């Protein structure tokens, strides 16, 4: 079954090895002090700072072609891809399966990048630089994607992947309407649907697998919540059910549609749910100031904290890997926010508010 890759062919998982390496890498991520320093630097200083850290190889490789915050961003992406590819390379058996499941979101990212690039008529190298080669797709497949001449070719080349069926369907809609939304939705939907597919639907609550499933559900819930909040805030005349992702436990399709109509009800529902405690302060902020950005950052922080908690509770499971993946993603987001913020001339305080730091 090509869906889960061949590397998992019935072998036992090697948790010990992967987790020792992952923990070491988790420890060497940037900490508060580094961020505090970075926030006060200019873009070129940030680039120089990064040359002396973990990101040295990528900065040197890309330094000739880019400068400023573009350089920082592409170096970050490449580094992220390198680390996450390592994870897939090390892990075996069920562990591989668990990790690949989550990392497929970068496959989704790449597919969307290509589709957008083709739609906007961007040139090949621009598309290639935006790739994050961290997902399960092989090098050849990503190269084939890049070389595709039209969106139709992209859809065809993804025929045998998880995105195949839904993309083919969406392509017909795209041909009629000539807008990208159905294609992008199809990609996201395919990713989130396979996220929970094939995992035990009712695992023991207190086992590592159970918590992993719980975590993925939380991810789906938060995604739904974000979509609902955005729709509720923007007041757009879109049917929320169209963006609903199955598998979470917070909403079902109908309740989501009803709640989106009324912001206060939505917040109240979340407060009464299992996530209420973690999101309490964020929800208050949302009610008072109505700041969606702040709330979304609180969601990220809550997810990160939850993953950290899991990783200490179940040291020999997929949880530490998950916590590393999230932490690394946040680091990349943070540094990008700093670089872009400095470029745009934001003050250190303003930028610090944009960061997700535990």
């Amino acid at each position: 079954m090509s869906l889960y890759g061949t590397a998992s062919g019935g072998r036992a998982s090697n948790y010990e090895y992967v987790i020792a390496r992952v923990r070491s890498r988790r420890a060497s991520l940037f900490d508060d002090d580094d961020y505090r320093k970075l926030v006060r630097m200019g873009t070129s200083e940030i680039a120089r700072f990064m040359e002396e850290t973990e990101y040295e190889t990528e900065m040197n490789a890309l330094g000739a072609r880019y400068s400023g915050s573009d350089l920082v961003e592409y170096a970050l992406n490449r580094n992220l891809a390198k680390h996450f590819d390592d994870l897939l390379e090390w892990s075996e058996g069920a562990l591989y399966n668990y990790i690949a499941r989550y990392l497929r979101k970068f496959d989704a990212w790449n597919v969307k990048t290509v589709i957008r690039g083709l739609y906007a008529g961007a040139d090949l190298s621009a598309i290639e630089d935006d790739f994050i080669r961290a997902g399960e797709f092989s090098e050849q497949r990503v190269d084939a994607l890049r070389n595709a001449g039209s969106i139709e070719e992209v859809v065809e080349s993804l025929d045998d992947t998880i995105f195949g069926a839904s993309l083919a369907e969406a392509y017909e809609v795209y041909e009629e309407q000539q807008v990208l939304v159905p294609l992008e939705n199809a990609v996201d939907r395919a990713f989130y649907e396979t996220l929970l597919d094939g995992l035990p639907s009712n695992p023991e609550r207190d086992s590592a697998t159970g918590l992993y499933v719980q975590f993925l559900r939380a991810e789906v819930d938060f995604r739904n919540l974000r979509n609902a909040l955005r729709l509720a805030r923007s007041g757009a005349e879109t049917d929320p059910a169209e963006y609903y992702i199955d598998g979470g436990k917070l909403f079902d399709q109908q309740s989501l549609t009803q709640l989106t109509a009324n912001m206060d009800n939505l917040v109240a529902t979340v407060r009464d749910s299992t996530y209420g405690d973690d999101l309490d302060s964020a929800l208050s902020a949302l009610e008072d100031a109505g700041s969606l950005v702040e709330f979304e950052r609180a969601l990220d922080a809550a997810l990160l904290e939850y993953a950290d908690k899991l990783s200490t509770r179940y040291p020999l499971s997929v949880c530490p890997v998950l916590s590393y993946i999230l932490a690394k993603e946040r680091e990349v987001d943070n540094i990008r926010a700093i670089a872009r913020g400095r470029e745009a001339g934001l003050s250190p305080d303003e930028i610090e508010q944009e960061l997700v730091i535990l």
Partner: protein
Amino acid sequence: MIETIAPVVNAVLQEGTAAAPAIPPSAAAALAVGLAALGSGYAERGIGAAAVGAVAEDDSMFGRGLILTVLPETLVILALVVVFVV
């Protein structure tokens, strides 16, 4: 089935009165050492994998990794005492 075996076993056991036990002491001691070695081998498998992972990330972990990897070896050493006791 078990009921039928019991008298047979009894008969066999009663037959040799000066009987040597099925496993003589030295063989039992050897077994004890062997089983202990198996156990520590299994323990070292996980620790070794983790240690190699740690060393791959950070060379200075080599000494500590080595010590932690051979710690379960004490099981075998303790089991070796049995050989001298018997």
